[in-house]
């Protein structure tokens, strides 16, 4: 089933993503870093490590540990967010870690930790997915062995129509079946979903369609990520010349 003539307030087609921008190497101090944005949502991620994990008792001699922190900067939203972790940000930190972990070869770094720090500079829906896209690039930029890049996007449904990359306004849609917000992440080149988080009202058959839509949209995100990574390698080479 394809979506009919759906009017989105910003004129996008149902499966059209907001304008994406990506830049790798935005935090010189970090081992790897990147920025990713979907329209007005801007995420920045830095990777430190693999490095010694302290306290020592947390170390795992059979594998490295991926430790993610996600949070909103206080001024990234209209109602100032109180600084420091909240239940929401704790949960998102965890699911972000789980979204990235399948792509990273942690077994190669026993006893160590890879710290991934993700902060949202400006929030307009889809912050966790923008954060995952940024973090995935930052991990690659840090030279950490990976099976694949991770691509993430918020898909969903307003009333009966499936759409990609919801805006804040669309998330708050109330009529008919209301809004369903379905954040997904998948490994870029294979059929493996690493983040699935949703709330709303959606028929099981439409969940199946969402997984197909995810495949298409993630391809576009993958291209943006790859280009940003290529750009940074090229500009590093320029500098060395």
């Amino acid at each position, binding site marked *: 089933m394809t979506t009919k003539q759906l009017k989105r307030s910003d004129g996008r087609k149902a499966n059209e993503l907001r304008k994406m921008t990506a830049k790798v190497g935005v935090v010189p101090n970090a081992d790897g870093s990147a920025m990713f944005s979907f329209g007005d949502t801007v995420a920045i991620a830095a990777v430190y490590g693999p490095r010694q994990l302290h306290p020592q008792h947390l170390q795992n001699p059979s594998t490295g540990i991926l430790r993610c922190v996600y949070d909103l900067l206080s001024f990234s939203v209209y109602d100032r967010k109180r600084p420091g972790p909240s239940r929401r940000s704790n949960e998102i930190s965890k699911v972000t870690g789980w979204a990235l972990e399948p792509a990273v070869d942690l077994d190669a770094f026993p006893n160590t930790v890879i710290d991934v720090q993700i902060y949202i500079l400006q929030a307009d829906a889809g912050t966790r997915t923008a954060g995952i896209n940024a973090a995935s690039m930052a991990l690659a930029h840090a030279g950490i062995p990976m099976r694949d890049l991770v691509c993430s996007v918020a898909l969903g449904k307003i009333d009966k129509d499936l759409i990609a990359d919801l805006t804040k306004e669309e998330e708050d849609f109330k009529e008919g079946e209301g809004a369903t917000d379905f954040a997904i992440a998948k*490994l870029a080149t294979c*059929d493996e979903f690493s983040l699935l988080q*949703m709330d709303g009202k959606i028929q*099981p058959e439409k969940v199946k369609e969402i997984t197909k839509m995810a495949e298409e949209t993630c391809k576009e995100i993958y291209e943006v990520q790859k280009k940003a990574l290529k750009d940074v390698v090229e500009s590093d080479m320029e500098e060395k010349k």
Partner: protein
Amino acid sequence: MSGMEVSNLTKQTLRKMLAEGKRFDHRGLLDFRELEVSYEVSKKAEGSARVKLGKTDVVVGVKLQTGEPYPDSPDNGNLMVSGDLLPLASPRFESGPPGFDAIELPRLVDRAVRSSGMIDLEKLVIKKGEMVWTVIIDIYPINDDGNLIDAACIGAVAALMQTVMPEIDKDGKINYEKKTSKKLPLSKDIVPLLFSFYKFGDSIILDPTREEQESSDARMTFGVSDWNGQFMVNSCQKKGGSTVTAEEIAKMMDILPKKFDETMKKFKKFL
């Protein structure tokens, strides 16, 4: 003994058996343990229930308070879900600040109940923009033998269905000792339930024991309900650092409506 982690040997045997479609307690991979629901855990609560799934035992209470509405929803009452994983219920639970599982459990129940539309929050306004009812659902496990999440949601729904409004005077002061004849405004026929699938390699099971739960690779929790005669998925959350395929998601989508009907049938016996 009870405090010990599941041994690698147990985990290996468990996985080998699951791959052959067998479980330690002889259940089928998608079978639930026996469900038991009782009420009136506390007469001081506005509503309460206790749910047993095999040896897993959870109590849920609903308290009502008055408060200000949230600025972004002046025409709605508030819903709050909280609770704690008490060290009473398992040698694995520790006192102190809540760990991730203790934070996640109420959030999963919150999302399932909220997005199903079970509670008619618009009818919980006392004075528009100024005073509304806040529905607080508190969840405490008494004994954890796996699948607390699904059990907690049944408990929350059962407790909500029992909830009776307390008396309130003109100034908004509540007299908890006097219950009115008014029930909490619920949308008829909406019963949200949570189903958590646990993945072991290529096998998927429902209603794990603690042992099974701790040996699994990943968990997928779905909130589901009937809404205007349509079966709807209301929430979803994956836990754990491994992946699921589109095919596995499709399989879970096919299982959900059947399991919902099956559990509702069992649940209705206790209503």
